């Protein structure tokens, strides 16, 4: 009896002193591995090119005299060429992430709480209609014509040919299809997307980047939010439905407020992806809508990479993201990928 009581009082997480020392040593070792490269960035941003190229100097004031020359160059000399990409990154990052999280959580909610049974014929009709719409738009006809024609074809096929098909796809198939879209290497689709935006005359604009980022990050949001919604208790929604609330109202007033930790964590996560994206931005933008990752890469001059400028740029790039991560830390703890636990 006494033994049992003692074991119960021992918290699972109580650890012996030697274990604690070992744990701290390991944690500090990895913290050093993470932080040293960041420290090196900070130090490099305070050096002159000559000092960078002269060899490793570790400690400012002891090994070298720190200077703000690089910071001055990035903020004053480059000036507009720093602020415009920065603005682009902020606008494109926040807008695309907001849209992605909204559309993605709607789809995820539908996949969790509603039952889809789409016949294969309907799917094919839909694809055919969408193909016609895209085709018309690419052929440079006005886009309302394209959408109208596509929708008409869809309805026509749906009510004729598709009637016969019995085989269907369910929620699981839809979810797997969405997630499998992440398997597409961007390099495989970027050329047609380039031509598509060229036809729409959207190249080098915020719009093109926002649309492309929404499309490529939607699967992640669906993936994460679907599992999160599954962990939200259904009883509240049921009682609201019995009280006569519409599905939209239930989603907005009950489900979304309950899912805030998951939404915040997902938002931060997708924002990091959009903020740092390089390949799509490289193809779709040139001067006006250029984002910061391209500015970083552009510091690689013919004489070799200008590390001092790059360091400044990387630091000002991660600044806001780190601030958000620290501010939202408690959400990350609870919300980030709670769903992943479910698998």
């Amino acid at each position: 009896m006494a033994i049992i009581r003692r074991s119960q009082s021992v918290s699972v997480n109580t650890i012996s002193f030697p274990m604690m020392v070992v744990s701290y040593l390991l944690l500090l070792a990895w913290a050093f591995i993470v932080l040293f490269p960041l420290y090196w960035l900070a130090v490099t941003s305070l050096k002159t090119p000559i000092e960078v190229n002269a060899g490793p100097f570790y400690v400012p004031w002891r090994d070298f005299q720190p200077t703000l020359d690089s910071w001055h160059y990035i903020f004053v000399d480059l000036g507009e060429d720093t602020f415009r990409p920065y603005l682009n990154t902020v606008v494109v990052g926040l807008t695309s992430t907001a849209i992605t999280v909204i559309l993605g959580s709607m789809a995820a909610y539908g996949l969790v709480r509603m039952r889809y049974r789409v016949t294969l014929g309907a799917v094919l009709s839909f694809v055919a209609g969408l193909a016609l719409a895209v085709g018309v738009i690419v052929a440079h006809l006005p886009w309302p014509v394209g959408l109208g024609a596509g929708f008409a074809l869809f309805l026509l096929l749906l009510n004729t040919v598709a009637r016969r098909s019995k085989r269907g796809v369910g929620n699981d198939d839809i979810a797997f299809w969405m997630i499998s879209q992440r398997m597409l290497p961007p390099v495989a689709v970027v050329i047609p997307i380039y031509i598509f935006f060229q036809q729409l005359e959207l190249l080098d604009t915020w719009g093109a980047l926002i649309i492309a980022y929404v499309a490529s990050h939607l699967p992640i949001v669906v993936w994460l939010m679907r599992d999160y919604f599954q962990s939200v208790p259904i009883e509240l929604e049921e009682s609201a439905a019995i009280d006569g609330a519409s599905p939209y109202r239930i989603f907005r007033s009950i489900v979304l407020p309950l899912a805030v930790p998951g939404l915040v964590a997902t938002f931060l996560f997708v924002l990091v992806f959009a903020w740092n994206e390089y390949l799509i931005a490289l193809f779709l933008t040139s001067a006006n809508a250029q984002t910061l990752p391209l500015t970083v890469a552009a510091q690689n001059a013919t004489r070799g990479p200008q590390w001092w400028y790059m360091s400044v740029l990387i630091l000002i790039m991660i600044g806001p993201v780190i601030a958000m991560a620290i501010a939202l830390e408690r959400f990350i703890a609870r919300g980030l990928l709670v769903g992943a636990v479910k698998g």
Partner: protein
Amino acid sequence: MSGYVSTRGFRLTRSSWRSLGAGLDRYAGAVFILPAVIVILGFSIFPLLASLYVSLTRLQFAAGGVELKFVGFNNYAKLLVGIDHEHFLGLAGPLNPVSIVVLAAGYGLLGWLLYRYVRSASRTPGGLIGRLVVVLGAGVLLWLVVSTVMTSGRPGTVVVTLVYVGVDVSVQYLLGLGLALLVVQHLPGRRFFRVVFLLPMMITPVGVAYLFQMLTNTSIGPLYPLWVRLGLTDVSWVTNPWGARLAVMIGDVWQWTPFIFIILLAAIESLPHELVEAAVVDGANRWQIFWRVTFPLILPASSTVVLIRLIEGFKIVDLPNVLTNGGPGTATESLTLHAYTIWRALDIGGSAAVAYMLLIVVTFVGVSYVNLFRRRVTAMA
């Protein structure tokens, strides 16, 4: 992902939705899901089909636009048997005893798995075909890796990408799991570690690449004293193929370990306390608690995170492009970088063909992983 269905949710909701009646609400399902479906369809299927067509053509820039000339499977033939096959598949060296042992072991394992399935009661024609495809594909990839990496041969971009993904994901998983287990203990300062460990993930991959170029520089990097001691100051370690690949892999591990760390941390933290406490009461030690309780319970989360990293890992491009520019020669080129270099040489059709080969490999690995491993794990939980 698809193995998991909340049947509870469906059963209950159906009855409650039915009580809602008609009107716009009837279409709520479509309203919720269609925007996402349209966006994803528009930006995956059609570009994909267009790319497929481009990969079968030779694209030339003519006056006032481009000219597409249909060439059939020429672009693919070039990669598999033609002038680019050493670049793509690599150069197989003569088999030595080690590689023969590895090959025999690998093929033995594949054969045994297939045999076990054929003998099992639950086999279906579809399942058998699927497994035959998996065994064949895995066999080909195994031969490619072994015959180019473990011999005097030279690995091509397919093999290099596979090596990156295999090594990176395993190391990231082990490190991420270890760190999550360390942070989950109630030590003072854990919140600090939690935020700090996330940092590498938040840097743009291009930035990480330049950062590691700086760190690995043998004459001006911070490890200079180490290189002096080893007498390596004059050689840039990126002139050695495996040294260069190691640099790329270290950068990737540094950047993406946080991702696995944070998901596994969330998974471990949300485990029910009672289970672990019960194990403690029963006198289990830490080692037993981990292997008998924690690890099986986080296996579904592990399988998800490994799947995400597998898929994303195949797209590696920034690190090798910046860090080593694919060199020395093509030693560090990943498939995406391969496609990109061909694209820069204005062989758009060839580039699309490489991208398609990448898509085939990713799909093969991803779908095999989901069907053979992940589904079993999630069904168990």
